[in-house]
Structures are given as C-alpha cells and as structure tokens.
C-alpha cells in the first residue's frame, strides 16, 4: 500500500494559504495502477473531515484496509493519546490506552453505524470507555438499539445520518461562539472527568450556577443545530 498521508505534518498548500490547512494526499494504488487522487481536507472543515473518516472506517470494516486504518490512526491516535494524557502524567500509560482504543476501532469498525454519531464521536466514546475501564474500574452501561424493548425515534436513522456530518461542522462553529466559561465547563467535564458536582467544588461556584451554565451552553448549541437553513 502506498498511501501517503501528511496530516499533522503541515504540508504547505499554496492554493489555499490557510494556516490550519493540512493536506491529505490519498493515493490508493490498487494492483500497481498508478493513481494520484489527491484529496485536500481542511481540518477546520469538520463536515469534510468526518465524511472522509467515514469512508476510511468503511474501508476498514469491509476490506480490512490497513492503509485506510493508518489514515484514521494518524488523525485520531495523537488526539486520543492527548485525551488520555489529561488524566495521567504517565506518557507510557496514555500511549497504551490510546493503542487499546485504536485496536478496538480496528476490531469494531463493522459495528459502527450512524446512530452512534459521527466517526469522531464514536471514537471518543470508545476512548472514554477505556478510561472508565482503566481508572474507574467500572463497566459502561449503554443502550442497545437492537433490543426488543428499545423505543425507536419517529424519524428514520437515514434522516439522522444525512444531517450528521453537516451537524459536525455546525456544532463546531457554534462551540466557538460559546462564552469562555461555558466552553471551559465542557472541557472540564469531558477531559478532566469532573462531574458537575466536583466542578462546582473545584471552581468554587454554587452547584446551581454550574448547572445553569451547562444548560445555557447546550441550549445555545441546540439552537445552532436547529437553525438549519
């Protein structure tokens, strides 16, 4: 496989002089056919990013495509490792938990479906469950859409899938407009594993204030998502 991937290595692209622009050079060369399909993905374009990652994950699921997996790995691996490192100073442990997470991504690729969120969200949940398993010594209970007692939503999953990658971009832009103290609260929750109760202690804020900030933040994000034009 001769997939060249330059994400994270800041390959300069002259046509779009965006600082955060990275170039994805994907060259699947099946059976010696020299093709150079270049696909540039702006890492700020979460829609394009998630669509691309969905394609890679699909290739892993259907044909155990190592080259596609390498691209997933080179994007998510360093991020998952950074996420693990938020809870420990032990770099080796963070690396180990990241590897466990990415092995699970490889193994469970066929189990991914759009009802689990976009690819970034799905990988986040796998990493989070690794953290719960390792640090909290707890199991993670989750609902099962195939359970006969499960109550499905009235909208079809196809509708949800259609909007999902669009939503990734919209959600992301909405998050950038959140007041700093609200965004900080979300980061504390997701990264430092702080419950809203312990955040209130940590920041010396009344519990009611923390709760109302959380509600305000998500109300704002929901408005942004509902505002589909």
């Amino acid at each position: 496989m001769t997939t060249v991937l330059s994400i994270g290595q800041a390959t300069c692209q002259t046509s779009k002089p965006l600082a955060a622009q990275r170039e994805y050079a994907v060259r699947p060369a099946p059976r010696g056919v020299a093709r150079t399909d270049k696909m540039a993905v702006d890492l700020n374009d979460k829609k394009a990013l998630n669509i691309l990652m969905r394609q890679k994950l699909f290739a892993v699921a259907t044909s155990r495509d190592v080259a596609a997996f390498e691209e997933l790995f080179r994007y998510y691996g360093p991020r998952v490792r950074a996420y693990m490192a938020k809870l420990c100073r032990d770099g080796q442990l963070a690396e180990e938990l990241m590897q466990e997470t990415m092995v699970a991504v490889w193994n469970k690729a066929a189990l991914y479906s759009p009802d689990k969120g976009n690819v970034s969200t799905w990988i986040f949940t796998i990493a989070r469950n690794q953290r719960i398993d390792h640090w909290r010594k707890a199991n993670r209970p989750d609902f099962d859409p195939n359970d006969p007692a499960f109550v499905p939503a009235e909208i079809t999953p196809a509708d949800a899938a259609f909007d999902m990658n669009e939503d990734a971009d919209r959600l992301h832009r909405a998050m950038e407009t959140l007041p700093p103290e609200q965004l900080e609260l979300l980061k504390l929750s997701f990264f430092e594993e702080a419950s809203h109760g312990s955040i209130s202690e940590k920041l010396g804020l009344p519990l009611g204030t923390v709760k109302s900030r959380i509600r305000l933040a998500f109300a704002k994000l929901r408005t942004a998502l509902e505002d589909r034009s």
Partner: protein
Amino acid sequence: MSIVHHLEEDILLDHAAGTLAEGFSLAVATHLAICPACRERYAMIEGTGGALLEDIEPATDTDASWQSLRTRIAGAPLPTAKPARRGSAGGSAPILPEPLRSYVGSDVDAIHWKAMPGAAQFIIQTRDGRAVARLLRIPAGKPVPEHTHRGMEMTLVLSGAFSDEDGTFTRGDIEIADGSLTHQPVATDDADCICLAVTEAPLKFKSWIVRLFQPVLGI
C-alpha cells in the same frame, strides 16, 4: 403513554463524559433506551465530546506509535461477531430494557426478589460499587419504604406507577432527588410498581464502633 419526567443536561453531560458512578449511568442508559427525546439531546451532548476530541492539541511521535500498532493488528485474529445477549426470548418486548436486563440477568418474571419491609428488592451488582442500584417492587397502593436521602437518588419507573409531590411517574419517567427533597412516593392502586432505584453508596467509616452504630444513627 409518553414520558413526562426526563433527564436534564447536567446529568446527560456527566453520563457522556463518563463521570457518573456506574449505578447512575445504568439508570441513565436505561432511560435513554426508552426515551427518544432524551436520546436526541444526548446525541448532541456526546457529539460535543467528539468535537472536543477533534480540537484537542494532538500528541506527537505518531510514527513509532503506528509501527507498534500495525504489528498488533497484523497479528490479531479477525474478531468474530458475538451473538446478541437476550434475557428474554419471549414474543412480547421485555419489561427491562438493555442495559438493565443484562445487569439483572433476566427479565422481571425470573427475578429472585428479596423481602424487605413494605416491598421487595433485588440488588444489582455494579463493578465500581460507587452507587447502590436496586430494583424495587412496591405493592399497589402502598408507599415506597422509608429511606434516607444521602446525596443523589435516581428512580426510574419500569412498570406500574407511583405518585409524589412532583407528580405521577409511569414507565420511563425518571425522578432525581437530592438530600434537600423530602418526598413520599406511593404506588398507584392499579398495579405493583417496579422501579430501578439508585442511591449513592453509604459512607464508609473507618471506626468499627461508628460502623456498628451507623444503622442506629441513620448515617
């Protein structure tokens, strides 16, 4: 019958972030299984976690990592699909939705209830033990047994209904109470009420004397 009493964002966030004790997460996940409205709100909250992961400052040294992972997946056997666990193979939908049914080990008809004053209970084992999760079966028309509130308590109705100052709770409704709330739920007259009740684990005292008197002191 639709669900009236839902989960609020702060609890959904703690579930998405993985900070809730396992017992509380069990109640949240079981509510989500039967409440599409909360599931939709939850999807966005979990999506926020995905978005934050995209934006995190990535670690470096990817090459060495990749070489080591590549070796691991090359040697790994292909995973085989696990058959789905089913607690009840009957025709009608089970009373206990997943993930609760797997935690209990069966649907309600096969539970070995243990008698307690005024009700029957079944303690559900969790790995972290940070919260105590139990199924309660309260006889029709009877009050929920007296219990002290220490910290948070979540009650999810699975069958039948109960009423208290906050209204009537039927299947899927979830009530979250903290120490400040005094309530006396009573099962409605038509049927026994089966609910999942989760409370924070009681404080553990080092002194055996205090432990001995804990039930008497009510702490």
